């Protein structure tokens, strides 16, 4: 289980988290939606241990967390394969073993032909696939995703959500998935948490019943959930 309990965090005078609590079960994908600047990234960084809370408790399954950031954040001077295997290198996995694992993930993510290319030679979608693979390959105890598909077109986004779900099904684990995209959330989440803030507060929670891997974009539950999210998130506009 991945849990934040009464977490407090301020940047100077600005309190971003004020006694915030949230948990993701051992096999639960929790999507976080909410306006920009409401504290989602901060709470993700605290959940993953990149940032220390001023107060409160963080419980994380033992082991390395896997991160996917908004931008791919690949090392420009390393090939796709080396970038994908970075976490294994950090863990001291020997070269031969590393290469074998990396080759498997390159294959699963449809990157087999791109192994020896540098990031500047890859398309945006391929770069984010490498970033996904870099998080998967360390067998992370939990996954923390910070709007990872934000800058991709809708087709690529759905493909990458699919890849994420496939990986999750192979090895279920707690996932915190920050997104602005209602379709992404409705497709991937067991539970959707709608936030407001700062400081971050939970405005609404929606639990979905169909297992994520069996959902299709045009399922009734997915469409209903999207509509509910839209109603929650969209600001009423004046009539034209």
């Amino acid at each position, binding site marked *: 289980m991945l849990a934040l309990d009464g977490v407090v965090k301020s940047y100077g005078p600005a309190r971003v988290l004020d006694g915030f609590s949230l948990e993701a079960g051992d096999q639960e994908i929790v999507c976080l939606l909410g306006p920009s600047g409401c504290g989602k990234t901060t709470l993700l960084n605290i959940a993953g241990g990149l940032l220390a809370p001023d107060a409160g408790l963080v419980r994380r399954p033992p082991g390395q967390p896997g991160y996917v950031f908004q931008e791919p954040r690949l090392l420009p001077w390393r090939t796709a394969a080396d970038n994908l295997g970075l976490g294994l*290198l950090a863990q001291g996995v020997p070269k031969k073993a590393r290469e074998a694992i990396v080759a498997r993930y390159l294959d699963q993510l449809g990157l087999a032909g791109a192994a020896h290319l540098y990031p500047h030679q890859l398309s945006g979608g391929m770069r984010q696939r490498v970033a996904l693979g870099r998080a998967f390959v360390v067998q992370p105890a939990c996954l923390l995703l910070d709007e990872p598909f934000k800058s991709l077109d809708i087709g690529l986004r759905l493909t990458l959500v699919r890849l994420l779900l496939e990986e999750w099904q192979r090895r279920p684990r707690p996932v915190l998935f920050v997104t602005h995209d209602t379709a992404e959330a409705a497709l991937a989440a067991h539970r959707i948490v709608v936030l407001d803030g700062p400081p971050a507060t939970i405005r609404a929670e929606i639990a979905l019943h169909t297992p994520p891997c069996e959902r299709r974009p045009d399922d009734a539950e997915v469409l209903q959930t999207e509509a509910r999210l839209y109603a929650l998130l969209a600001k009423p506009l004046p009539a034209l």
Partner: protein
Amino acid sequence: MATGARRFCWPLLGVLLLVALWSLLAALYPPILVPSPMAVLGALGRLAATGVLWQALGLTLLRLAAAFALGSVLGATLGLLAGQSDALAGLLRPGLGLAAGAPPIAWIALALIWFGTGSLTPIVVAVLVTAPVVFDATFQGMRALDRDLVTMARAFGLQGAALVRELYLPALAPHLLAGLSVGAALTVRIGVMGEFLACDRGVGSAMALARTQLNTAEVVAWVLVALALLWLSEGVLLGPLARGAAAWRQEA
């Protein structure tokens, strides 16, 4: 092939132009003021044949290599540390400003008093001038470092030597190499000047000796030797390093 020819064509023409200008001046003035290119080559040949050249060159090469190694390691290390701590950067800035800003001749005067004549004086002075340049370049590189990449590396548990090899070194390489290139040129220029004023052996002191003997052709011959040292540092050391560091960019 054509681009390669074009790359060398203009600099070669530039050299020929210089030699022509030099020959013209040599024709106008007596050899004691401006020796002809042939006279200089002759002097160089004699120095090489008698072995004087190789002895002086060997010693100077050792001194300059020591000064360059010390200056770059010192500058790069301090730059790496200062890039991570604003307090340390502030603390170091005045000292390094003093080292870089004071006229090199002042350092030579002081070093002569402190260390006397010998290898230590040109080495210390060259280090004092080289280290701040390499420091600045490294520090700028640290400032330009992509914080998001650092966060990413930390998130994936990269640390120690692996962190330096995978992230810091490649990210700093362009800055560091630019600093090293300027530093190498300074080391040669200031090191040879230190020898000229403070030593009784080496390229600089041989130049000083030739001057006292009014052997102008030999003075210019030693200038060519100092230039060759500079080409050596660029061609053998820094050029290949820069090409290696930039290899990933070339992949189209």
